[in-house]
Each structure stands twice: as C-alpha cells, then as structure tokens.
C-alpha cells in the first residue's frame, strides 16, 4: 500500500504540470534535496548544505530562528486582528471588547498576539546576548551584528506602537510617559514628539499614526532588515559554529 502511494507520488511529480511548477521532477537523492532549496524563491536564501555543528542545540539555542517564528506568528495574528479593529477613538476600545466577547476565537487571537509580542522582545534580547557570548559578532560578522542591533530597535518600536492600540488606561499612559521622555531629547525632541503623535497630546491622531507605523511601516522596515540579516549570514560564511569560541 505504501509502495503504491510512493509510486503514485513519483509518477505525479513526473507529470508535465508538476514539472512546470516545480521543475525538479521526481527523485529523492542529494541532487533533489539541493534543488528543493535552490530553486525555491522563499527557501533559496538558505544554503543548500549546512554545517552539522551549527545545528546542534547548544550552539545557538535556535534563538534567531525562534525570533523569526514569533515575528511570523505576530504578522499572521496581527492581520487577522486588523479585520475587527478600527483605529479611532473611542471605537478602538469597543473593538477590543468585541474581540474578547463577540468575535469567535477573538480572545485567543488577541492573547496569542500579545504573548508572542512579549516573547519576541525577550527572544531578541536573548539572541543578542547568546550571539555576544559565543563571539559570533567578530569579523567578518561585524556588520551583521549592527543590523541585529537595528532589528532590536525596530522590535522595541513595533512593541511600543502596538501597545497604544487597545486604547485602555495602560496603553494611554504608557505612551504618554514614553512620548514625554522623547521630548526630553535636546534640540529636536519636542518636534519629533509632535510629528510622532500628530499633535500635542496623545489623541486620535496619535492612535492613527501609531496604527500605520505598527501595521505597515515598521513591518516592512523589519522585513527589509531581516532579509539583509539573513543575506549577511550567507555572505559571512554561514552560522558561526564557535569551534574556538573563547567564551564557551
């Protein structure tokens, strides 16, 4: 039975239609594995082969991978939450109540989004410390470290802008305090605060700007820098395996 399915599967992969989509046809050897990665628009950012050592758990604890995973979970849940959310005052708060009590699986999606956000911030910090302690920031990976710090800033900013969206007391005052800290920057602090909030206080304009930042601008910027980050891993010679890592 299994053999019949396997034969059928291989025959399917040899058909004209399948080959027009996937090109590599039937097969299961190394060549085929290589082509699966190399011919795939999403996967070909990765190399065809990886060092066995780099995938041992103790080397990276998979923290970078997990950070990307939380980012993808957040994007998915975020898009779904956007379908029931109006970024206006006070409708936003009413929508939060809707999501909790009226929308099917609303409370689950919102919880998942929130906990994934906390997890992502935590994982980003953990990833940074792990990379530092295993010395993976040294040449030729210096610039990738800088990209990583930029991604840390983007992550924190994403979390900060998302924090305002529920428009509850927690959100409002956390953002008020944060924007007042921003205005303490000398010379252009007040101006930047005015632009960020779209006004003098945290009100409807601020909510809308934070919404656009959180859902459109920052995710695109993050995707851009994530792509550079992964590209640099390839160009710098793959994951640092820390064979002579001094801190281990």
């Amino acid at each position: 039975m299994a053999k019949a399915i396997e034969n059928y599967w291989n025959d399917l992969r040899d058909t004209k239609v399948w080959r027009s989509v996937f090109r590599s046809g039937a097969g299961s050897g190394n060549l085929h594995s290589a082509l699966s990665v190399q011919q795939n628009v999403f996967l070909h950012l990765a190399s065809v082969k990886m060092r066995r050592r780099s995938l041992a758990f103790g080397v990276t604890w998979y923290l970078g991978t997990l950070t990307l995973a939380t980012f993808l979970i957040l994007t998915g849940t975020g898009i779904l939450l956007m379908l029931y959310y109006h970024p206006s005052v006070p409708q936003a708060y009413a929508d939060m109540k809707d999501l909790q009590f009226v929308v099917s699986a609303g409370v689950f999606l919102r919880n998942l989004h929130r906990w994934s956000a906390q997890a992502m911030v935590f994982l980003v910090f953990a990833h940074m410390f792990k990379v530092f302690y295993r010395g993976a920031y040294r040449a030729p990976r210096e610039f990738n470290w800088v990209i990583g710090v930029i991604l840390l800033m983007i992550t924190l900013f994403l979390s900060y802008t998302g924090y305002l969206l529920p428009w509850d007391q927690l959100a409002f005052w956390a953002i008020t305090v944060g924007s007042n800290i921003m205005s303490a920057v000398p010379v252009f602090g007040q101006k930047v605060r005015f632009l960020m909030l779209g006004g003098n206080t945290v009100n409807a304009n601020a909510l809308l700007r934070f919404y656009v930042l959180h859902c459109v601008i920052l995710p695109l910027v993050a995707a851009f820098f994530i792509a550079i980050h992964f590209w640099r891993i390839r160009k710098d010679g793959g994951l640092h395996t820390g064979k002579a890592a001094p801190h281990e």
Partner: protein
Amino acid sequence: MNESNPDPKAFEAVVESDSRKAPVRVAFVTRRTSPQVKAESDPFMMTWPEGLFRVAVACEVLSIALVLMALFWDAPLEGLADPMQTPNPAKAPWYFLGLQELLHYFPPVVGGVLIPTLVVIALIVIPYFNVNVEAEGVWTRNRRKRLQVFSAVSLALILLLIVFKVWAVLAPTVIIGAAMLFAARESENAGRFHGWLSSHPLSFWIMTWFLVTATLLTAIGTFFRGPGWSWVWPWSAY
C-alpha cells in the same frame, strides 16, 4: 641517490615556458597563503530535509508553548483611556520598566535619553573595538597596570552611583567588581572555578555587568514598585 631512482624531495625550481622541457608544473603553497586554501573538514548536511526539519521542530515547540499560554492566560485590558485620570502606578511595558526605574534616579535627559543612547551606541560599536576581539583573559597580560586602571574606573563608578543613590546598579557593580578581582588573584592551586573565571576577556565582564544590571532594574520596576513609584515588597503588595 642514483639517476634511475631520483629522490622525490630533490627537485629543482625552474622557470620554463617550454612544456616539452618542463612538463610538470608545481604549485607552491607558502604559509602566507589565504586560509581558504585549507580544505574544510566540517561535516555538512543537506538543508532540505534535515536542516529545515529541525527548524520546523523548534518553531513548532515555540508555537505550542505560545498557544498554551494564549489559551490559559488573558492579555490585560484596563478601563477606557482617560486623559484626566492617571493610574497609580503608571507602568511602562516590562522591557521599558528597567528604563523607568532608572528614571527614578536620574533626570529625564540623563536617564531617558542619554543613558539609552549611550547603551545603543555601545552595542553597535562592540565588534569594531579591539577589546571585544581579544579572546584571552583580561588579567593575562599587563596585570599590574590593568589592575590600576580597573581600580580607578570602578572606584569612580561606585562613587557616582553612591552620590546619585542608585543602589540598584551599585549592588551588581560591586559583585561583578569583586568577581573580577577574585579572577585577578594569582594563586598556585587555582580551583576550576577560578580558572574558568580568569579566562574571560574584558568584553565578557562588561556585557555581564550590563546584563545583570538591566535584569535587576527590570525586576525592581516590575515587582518592587507600587503607587507613587514607592518601594513595595511583592509579597505584601499582591
């Protein structure tokens, strides 16, 4: 050696373009050659399916953990935003609570702008400074001179922290400083822990100090601060 059995090591280096006179060309690899010439003896494996399956498993474990969390613990939602009513205490999200705790000790310009900016700049320039590229223990060379510099810097820092009454940062500074001094001790029968401690370069100590300080500040801001940002003991407050 006779002609019929020439010594393979006895060769003559000539420059000869006539392929009939000198048919064998030898590549001479000196010690100055780029390390890329060395063959890698690292075992490789295919990204698909092995590598990506491991990635998938890691992602699945994380997803399960997050889904379980989402099923059992609700995200908080307080009352509608009221510009005329500040909750007491008004706390930032946990990753900024360390910063908010720092704001308790320093004015907003210093604690809110200067210190975070310096931290970000310090992080960015890490890989470009020699102190972070050295891999040997900080006390291995120039021990006396380094001890003097260390004493001066740490004393100045501790004085600054006492003047501003930043006890939360003072405690880890003193502990890490003590650990560094312990690592600097030259003892004949150094234990394994002592050996491990003294093998760390300066970058390790600075980063560990930063990690411990940030964690402590965040923990205090989360659990030990109540209304009016006054000190509370978590077991009595909740």
